[in-house]
């Protein structure tokens, strides 16, 4: 069931598999980033932080308080945020720039393209408050296009951690690379699935759950990214209790894609469901589909936002309304299994 090698939190499933989030250890992914940046700053004095008037919200405050000389408050100016960072990177700094994902990389895409990826500078773009579960702030503040915007850029690494612990590890890891990187964070508290012992390597997908047995291949594979991974795991556990064989992959690195792992999953399951809090167009599922269409055509059902904007509501209401809840993942699984040849 739970892949022991992943060394996950033993309490990720409630006894009855109902998704009542009060049952889980909860922590915001952005908190993990804040802790990770502080740790990265302690490890390397070239790490600098720049923020567009959202120091507290994006959890850069831990770093800014500890290293005031290495922190630059840019003000509400996201175009300047990334271009100033490009200049600092040119001088050997490793800049982390944070804002809400809707504004960075939402507003400053061309500056990111020209001065960071085209220019090949190791700037780390931190997009907090991504996804529709930003909630009551409404559609203007719900970035559900950011993965598409970033993964289309040559050289850009795209990371979408599933929980706070993974976000901390990812932040520390990407401070050590020379790649321009986008890391996607979420505002609300979400279940902590991983532990300190869970392995993390940029570009390496992980199997978190597998209920296949007796040497048989699973009936279906689920590939999830970000906090929705937890719902995917709950669905997998529920279906497995009814006898289905399901394998679940955590795809925290959307670019570069772990094509070996995806190919293996596609070959062994013959049917996939992708799950992400993002537009289906251009998102993680698209990346998986682009690869498999060329190398191993496989039936895929996509769980994500279908060409719509969000609105105000609680995260749970919005996830349900935009068809990314437990029932929708189940439905996608049933559909894709029927499509198997």
């Amino acid at each position, binding site marked *: 069931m739970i892949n022991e090698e992943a060394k996950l939190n033993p309490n990720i499933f409630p006894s009855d598999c109902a998704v009542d989030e009060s049952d889980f250890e909860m922590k915001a992914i952005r908190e993990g980033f804040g802790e990770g940046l502080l740790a990265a700053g302690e490890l390397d004095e070239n790490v*600098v932080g720049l923020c567009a008037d959202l120091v507290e919200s994006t959890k850069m405050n831990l770093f800014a308080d500890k290293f005031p*000389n*290495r922190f*630059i408050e*840019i*003000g509400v*100016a996201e*175009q*300047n945020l990334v*271009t*100033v*960072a*490009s*200049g*600092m*990177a*040119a*001088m*050997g*700094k490793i*800049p982390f720039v944070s804002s809400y994902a809707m504004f960075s990389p939402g507003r400053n895409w*061309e*500056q990111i393209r*020209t*001065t960071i990826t*085209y*220019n*090949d500078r190791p700037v780390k773009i931190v997009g907090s408050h991504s996804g529709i579960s930003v909630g009551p702030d409404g559609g203007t503040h719900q970035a559900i296009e950011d993965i598409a915007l970033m993964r289309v850029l040559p050289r850009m690494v795209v990371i979408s951690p599933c929980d706070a612990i993974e976000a901390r590890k990812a932040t520390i890891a990407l401070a050590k690379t020379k790649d321009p990187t986008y890391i996607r964070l979420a505002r609300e508290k979400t279940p902590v699935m991983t532990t300190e012992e869970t392995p993390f390597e940029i570009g390496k997908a992980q199997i978190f759950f597998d209920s296949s047995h007796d040497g048989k291949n699973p009936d279906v594979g689920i590939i999830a990214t970000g906090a929705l991974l937890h719902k995917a795991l709950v669905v997998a556990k529920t279906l497995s209790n009814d006898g289905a064989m399901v394998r679940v992959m955590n795809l925290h690195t959307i670019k570069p894609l772990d094509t070996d792992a995806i190919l293996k999953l596609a070959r062994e399951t013959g049917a996939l469901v992708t799950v992400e809090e993002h537009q289906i167009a251009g998102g993680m599922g698209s990346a998986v589909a682009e690869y498999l269409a060329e190398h191993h055509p496989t039936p895929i059902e996509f769980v994500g936002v279908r060409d719509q904007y969000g609105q105000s509501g609680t995260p749970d209401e919005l996830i349900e309304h935009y068809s990314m809840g437990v029932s929708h993942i189940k439905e996608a699984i049933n559909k894709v299994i029927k499509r198997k040849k």
Partner: protein
Amino acid sequence: MSAEEIKHLQKKANDIRISLIEALIEAKSGHSGGPLGMADIFSVLYFKEMKHDPKNPEWEERDRLVLSNGHICPVLYSAMAHAGYFPVEELKTLRKFGSRLQGHPHREYLPMLENSSGPLGSGLSQAVGMALADRIDGKQNDRIVWCLTSDGEHNEGNTWEAVLLAGKEKLHNLIQIIDRNYIQIDGNTEEIMPLDPFVEKYKAFNWHVIEINGNDILDIIRGIKEARSVENKPVIIVADTVPGKGVSFMENRYEWHGNPPGKGPEDVVTKDKQGEVALKELRAINF
């Protein structure tokens, strides 16, 4: 400053002009007006003021030069070639397939560039970032970050975001030189999007402003000397330049902003003669 030295810099500026015109004739596309107007400033920077070593482009202690308005790169390439970064002959590959001299500067192709540019309005921010990085490292008195900008790109919000930040951070190790030639693609800057009172705007943003004649070697040197002495403020040198400087039929004509010889207005010189006449005029200048 001896008369000899001034003559030397004037001669270098003219060499830069001749080579960039030759490159544009070969390229059959590209910008003429801005590069010609800025040649004197590039001459002073590359042959007098800038701390750099063409034989060791990665020298860590070098000054940094950020060209924000990347479309005037023919003058940058020409100045670099004459300074010894690469052969002058290579200028004739400008804009051609496989060339290191891309239509707009790209440091993947020419790594000795400090930045890739072209899309307007983001160079000043990068220069601010460089100046900030030097301050963090305690090197703010060791070198200058030069940033060359245009008046057209002062239509961009990104430019003003950088102006605000540089003023806030009091970056005296940053010197911006703006090519205030009053033209942009669609016409006169004051008709397209008025920038005046330009000097007062910068003063209000807490910059030190120096006005110079950007086609007068001595005045350029005077302006830079003053700029180096400023403490606690970023500096902008507002260079009044003549677009198309040195070629009579191009001077002060916005139609020459984005055209090479052979593609410009024909009311004075016909297209087939534009390159020839331009080179003839430049080569006839005596020093």
